[in-house]
């Protein structure tokens, strides 16, 4: 069962976190979670086109010192078909060092559940493996010898923005490549954790909008009993067919 879960896991959370939406939502958390207070949560509606609507919930549900002696917080990430998040299709719960962020160095414990499988903790090696696979690939020097293309960022004036979670005060920010809009982001201090009210990525027709938020988050994951077997991961990417 654990081997099967590992297989599902390899095909589940990593692509989910590495997807454009997953990266957009978790990018701010990869460099550190200094501002997120325990209880803060937000749910986002992801619209990837017809029949491709789903929801992510991000919540800080606890804090403690991790095994390396660093201040850390318990972060829950859920992905599901309904904003109520009563039955997410994927659940992650991780202990993240606040000053380091959601990366291979910062995460020391990680629980995962896929579908109706019982949540289980990953071994230390599996956590490092999962987060290393999740890290954005470093880009090499451009083959042409030209300089990397520069993106320009333009911030507008704060204004009232109507969202699914209600009207919030937000600052529009546009990221452009020459005259093409790469993404539009509305940043709001009212939305906890990510401060993201809305985002549009026109090139791929995706949009992200805050659906609900609050400051009363509690852990939703049912943790396995102490001493339960942990999940190991095996690397499939490098396997070659003889």
């Amino acid at each position: 069962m654990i081997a099967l879960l590992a297989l599902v896991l390899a095909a589940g959370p990593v692509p989910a976190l590495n997807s454009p939406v997953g990266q957009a939502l978790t990018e701010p958390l990869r460099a550190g979670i200094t501002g997120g207070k325990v209880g803060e949560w937000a749910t986002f509606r992801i619209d990837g086109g017809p029949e491709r609507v789903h929801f992510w919930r991000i919540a800080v549900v606890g804090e403690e010192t991790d095994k390396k002696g660093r201040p850390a917080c318990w972060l829950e990430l859920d992905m599901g078909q309904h904003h109520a998040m009563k039955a997410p299709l994927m659940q992650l719960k991780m202990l993240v060092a606040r000053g380091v962020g959601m990366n291979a160095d910062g995460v020391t414990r990680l629980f995962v559940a896929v579908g109706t499988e019982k949540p289980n903790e990953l071994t230390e090696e599996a956590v490092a493996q999962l987060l290393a696979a999740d890290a954005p690939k470093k880009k090499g020097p451009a083959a042409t010898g030209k300089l990397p293309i520069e993106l320009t960022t333009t911030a507008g004036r704060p204004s009232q923005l109507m969202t699914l979670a209600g009207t919030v005060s937000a600052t529009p920010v546009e990221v452009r490549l020459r005259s093409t809009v790469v993404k539009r982001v509305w940043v709001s201090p009212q939305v906890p954790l990510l401060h993201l009210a809305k985002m549009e990525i026109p090139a791929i027709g995706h949009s992200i909008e805050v659906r609900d938020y609050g400051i009363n988050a509690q852990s939703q994951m049912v943790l396995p009993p102490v001493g339960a077997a942990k999940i190991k991961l095996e690397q499939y990417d490098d396997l070659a067919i003889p």
Partner: protein
Amino acid sequence: MRALLLGLLLPLVAHAEQPLPVYPGTFPTRIGKDLLISGEYYRLAYFQTADPLKQVARYFQKQWVDQGYPVTVDGDFKNEGVVSAFYTREGLVRSIVLTQHEGKTLGFAVLKDVWVREPLSKAHKLPPLEGALFSEDLVLRDDSGGTQARSSLLEGTVDELQARLAKGFNEKGYALIRDTRVKLDGKVQRVVEFSRGKEQAVVGFIQLEPKLVAIQQTWVGSDRPDAVPNDEAVRAAREKAGR
């Protein structure tokens, strides 16, 4: 006063039994207590309604979708159909299995706990029969004892398989007490009965095809031969699963 009342009620809420899905206007009848079927943990009830099968299915589909649960549907919804909701946080699956029966809709309400699993070796009382093309076990336990029913499909003749099975029962200490032949739906069925103390096993053989035999085995233990009452077995299985 309110705090006291709340304090008294909270433990009851925390340990409340997980409810079965209920169709409005019906009175479900429980089928046994909690059941172990092929090692999996079930709670079952049935109900009957004059409402069309499709209407009943749509009621549950809408209710579960509106509440935010992933839902699957399967069947033609004229003669039969199944609607299931997946409670991923709790590890539960609630289903409604619908069929037509005498002009009415017969429904089975099912609650399955996918996080609790009883090892089959503990649940099984019937001796194993190697080489089955198909085999399904249904194990029930209640306060008065337990039963096990096994349906199997094997290659061979009735006489060959009867001899193999009798050897298995003998090795487990059962004695052959009856060997009869009865006619069922125009086919001859061989029925063999075994006994061990207060345990009884009845085995029926039907030759379906020249080299294909269906076997229905039923084991009944009225004196709790496993010395483990049902409630205790269920409690132990749930505790082991951290429920």
